[in-house]
Structures are given as C-alpha cells and as structure tokens.
C-alpha cells in the first residue's frame, strides 16, 4: 500500500515557516523509501503564490484551501478542515512543524481522528511497516522511541532537526483547490491582531543564537549581546536568570521553561549552564562559552571556551566579525 504523506505548510501572512520546508524534505525522503506521494496542505487567504515553492521542495501536489476563514491560523478552523480532508482522502502520515501552530493543529485533529500525535520529533522512519519516531522527553534529558500504530499518524517535527531540502525548480505538480467549508459564525475565536517586535530573528528558526545570562549584569548588559547578534544575523537568547531578573522579555528565554533551540552556533555569554538551561540548547551543533568562572558547567558542553570578562571579549569579537564579514 502506498504511503501517502501530507505536510501542513505553515505560513504567517504568506511567509512560509522554514520548518515546513524541512518537513517537506523529510516527507519526500520517506515517500521515496516507502513508495507514495507527498501532498502539501496550503491553508490560508491569498496564499496560492506559495504553491510553487512547496512543489520545488518535494511536494507532488498541493491541496489549496484559500478562504477568508483561514486568513489567520485557528486550531478549530484549520483542525476542522484537516480532519475533513483526512477522512475523505486517508493519508498514512501527516507532518507539521513542532511550532505553536503545528502542535495545536495536530493535537486538535488527533482527538477527531482517534489517533496519536507525536510532538517535537527529531528522527522518523518505518521499521517493519510501523512508524517509529524519536522524541526528546524530560526536557531533552532522555530520548523516547515511540511507535504510532494507528493511521493517520500525526507527527510534528522539531524545527532544525531535519535538513532543509534544496529547491528543485524543475519539479511540477497539480494544485488542487479544496473548499474550506467553514462558517465564520460558528468559530468561537477571532484574531484581533499581532504585536510584533520589529527586527527580531525567531529563536526556533535561527542558525546562530547569541545568548546572555546572569553575567551580563543588567538590562544594559544586553547591549553588547544584541550588537554581536546583529553583526552575525543571529537571534538573541537569554538564560532564566536574566529573564527572571527582568533584564529581557520572556520570549527570549532558552531552557526548560523557555524555548528549546538547535542552532548551528550557540554563543553563551555569562551563562553558567544550569541543567535547566542545557535542556534548551544542548542540541546546538557548536557551542561557544564566555564566562568568568572556569568551573562553570557550560564549559562541559562547549566546543570553544573563553574564561574571561564578556564585556571585553564580546566587543572585540563584534569588531573582528564586522571586519571578517565586511560589515
């Protein structure tokens, strides 16, 4: 039996989530191995322009629902539509990015489809015809291997845990319009707007994160952290100590009660590396630590370590990178 795989394409105001492209790449890999087709689920308003990008990144067809009720993601609207389509067309597997939206969507649909939703998966495969996934539990201190015996299996993939495929612009496929079939009056929620911090790089998508901790000493101590982040095109992170002290908003917190990130490079400045912080960043590929205390646990995780004063090291590093990167 062909393993038909669906990928929920997440977009906010017609901007694609990078993690959705990673999910398309993983779907393509599984479909090639198992025999089957990949369908991209593109829900929204005025989003048909994104169809070509999803085909180039591995989809064989696009199921496009373009409707005013879908202008903003709402679990009840998107979930209702996903459940209806899945009942009609019976896919074997539905993938989404493990973002706030992806997790809500699959958690909602799992109830109606009476199936499992596997959240925040970092590896996926079929063994003996059964879908097996690896996901971190206990804040990344352990790994669980889980089996999803029911179809469709719903799986959200941790951003940056899967490679983003190279686009192949020669790929073509059908764009199949599907009706949204929703009635605004029956939806209980209404999105009034979004308050966006300008110029921020999302932590989940970031290739580089520059993070500050207790060692930055105060809100003004984040100035060199931000400057270095800007030079590197990086997102700004923070430890719980810095957030709890009120030096930087919670949205920046990395760790057990903050965000879990997996950048190529994580620069920890004045962060001791408590076990709760490690839980959020230990899957970074390369970790650089700058700390005054040579005994700080962060040095056990770091590839490169500097024992010293971050207020001297960071400006020097910023100047050096400006020079190297021609900024």
């Amino acid at each position: 039996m062909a393993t038909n795989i669906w990928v929920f394409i997440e977009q906010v105001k017609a901007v694609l989530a990078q993690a959705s492209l990673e999910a398309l790449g993983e779907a393509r890999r599984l479909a090639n191995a198992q025999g089957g087709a990949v369908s991209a689920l593109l829900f929204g308003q005025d989003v048909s322009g994104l169809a070509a990008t999803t085909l180039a990144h591995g989809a064989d067809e696009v199921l496009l629902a373009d409707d005013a009720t879908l202008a903003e993601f709402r679990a009840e609207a998107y979930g209702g539509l996903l459940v209806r389509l899945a009942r009609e067309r019976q896919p074997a597997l539905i993938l989404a990015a493990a973002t706030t939206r992806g997790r809500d969507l699959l958690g909602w649909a799992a109830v109606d489809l009476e199936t499992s939703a596997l959240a925040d998966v970092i590896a996926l495969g079929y063994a003996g015809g059964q879908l097996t996934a690896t996901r971190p539990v206990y804040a990344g201190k352990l790994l669980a291997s889980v089996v999803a015996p029911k179809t469709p299996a719903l799986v959200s993939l941790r951003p940056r845990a899967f490679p983003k495929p190279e686009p192949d612009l020669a790929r073509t496929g059908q764009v199949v319009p599907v009706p949204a079939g929703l009635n605004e009056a029956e939806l209980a929620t209404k999105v009034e707007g979004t308050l966006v911090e300008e110029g921020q790089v999302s932590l989940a998508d970031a290739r580089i994160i520059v993070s500050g901790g207790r060692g930055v000493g105060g809100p003004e101590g984040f100035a060199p952290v931000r400057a270095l982040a800007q030079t590197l095109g990086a997102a700004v992170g923070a430890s719980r100590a810095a957030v709890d002290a009120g030096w930087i908003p919670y949205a920046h917190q990395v760790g057990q009660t903050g965000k879990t990130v997996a950048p190529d490079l994580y620069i920890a400045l004045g962060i001791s590396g408590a076990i709760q912080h490690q839980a959020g960043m230990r899957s970074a590929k390369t970790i650089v630590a700058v700390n005054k205390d040579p005994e700080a646990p962060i040095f056990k995780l770091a590839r490169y370590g500097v024992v010293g004063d971050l207020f001297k090291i960071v400006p020097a590093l910023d100047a050096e990178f400006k020079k190297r990167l021609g900024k």
Partner: protein
Amino acid sequence: MHIVVCVKQTPDSAAKVGVENGKVTWGDASLVVNPWDEYAIEEAIRLKEKYGGKASAISLGPESAKEALKTCLAMGCDEAVLIADPAFAGSDALATSYVLAKAIEKFGDVDVVLFGKQAIDGDTGLVPVGVARRLGWPPLTYTIKIAELDATARTIKVERLLEEGKQVVTSRLPAVVGTVKDINEPRYPTFMGIRKAAKAVISTWTAADVGCDPAKIGSSGSAMAWPQISGLPARQGSVELISGTPDEVAAQLADKLLADKVI
C-alpha cells in the same frame, strides 16, 4: 465563575533523570507540581480573586499526586480532586484528554479551564488542546496575558505568545486557556495556607465516577506506545580553551568558527 486548573505531578526540574532497566529514574529528587502548572494555578487564583467564584484543582495521577493538589490548596485554590483509577495506567495524551474532559464535565458549571504549557516529563503539550476539542471549547493556548474577561457577556480576550510575537485573540466562554511562564509570578503558599491544606480532605474520582468509557482510557484508549527510552548520547569532544588578549581571543575564535563553517 468556576475556574478549574489541571495540574500534574512531575520530578523536580533539577532532577538528574536517568534510565534503569528501561524505566525512568530520578534518584532522590522530589516530586513537585509541574513547574509550568504553577503559572496556571496562580492565574486560577487571580481570576477567582478578581471575578469571584471558585477555583478547583484537579490532577490525573497516582495517590502521591495528592501532594501536588495540596500545594494548589496551600496557594489558594478552594478545592482539589484527584482523578485516579488503576484503569488509567498507560494513558497517553489522547486518553488523558478524554479523562480530564469527563472530569470537567462532571463539575457541570465550569467557565475557564487552565493548563500549564506542557508537563516537563512527557513534554508533549497536547493535552490542553485535546481537552478543548473534547469539550467543544476554544483552545487559547500559549496565553501570556488574560487582557479582559467579561463574565456577563461570557467573553475573554487574551494575548498568546507565538513565534513571531503576541497575538491578540477574543473568544467566547467557556474556554480552555493554556498558560506560559510570564503570565504572572506564582505566589508562595502561606503558612496558614499550608496548615489548611494539610487538613483538607481531597476526594478521589474514579473512572466510573466521571463516566469514562473503559475502551477510551488506559492502554486500550491510547494510540501510541513507548517501547524504548534511553539516555542521551554523550557529547563528543571536550572544550578547547582560547586565551590571550581580547583581540587575540576574537581573532582565534573567528578563525575557528569560519573554518568550521558555522558562521
């Protein structure tokens, strides 16, 4: 207003978690209220204080979870109910959301259900949205602020913390609100609260009490299995310390990071 907060008992976040014979162990670390849930408990108490009514705490778990419920009472919840039954063993997020929804329905008069973002053991974050779906109520997950609540008009306005910023959403009540850290600063239990909680009788509701269909709970009501759990592979290599003047350190680090192609 009747506010229900759902809590879970988990190992302390500082626990050194490991695996022995395929079972998760956490040494002598204590069992506590799931850290994410503290924000939901605080928000339940604040809603009660502001709008009047009652705040109830419920927990699906073993007998030991009564300790977590006592923390809820000591902080200021009015009543606590343990949802416990041997038949619940092996429940995944699908079965758990079913049981909790049945318990909430048993109260009969609930206006707002509060959850923490996720439990720090299973880390799925699926239960709040699953409970909302089962109750047919809107899921207001990742809420960082309850901006307005109108008990008469039966509406609520919240700010949700999403990847790109804060989303403002209005909804009808009843609703399920999933909280994130930063929605408030959880209070510490008072001495009087702790004394009151120690004396409180926490009732237990079984599967039959909340009217569960036996096919929908425990392992038979679950759609996933955990055949294997393991520790993390050790991180390769050890730290390379870089020393010198700040300029020398910067130049060396830049060389290495560019050579490693991470910048």
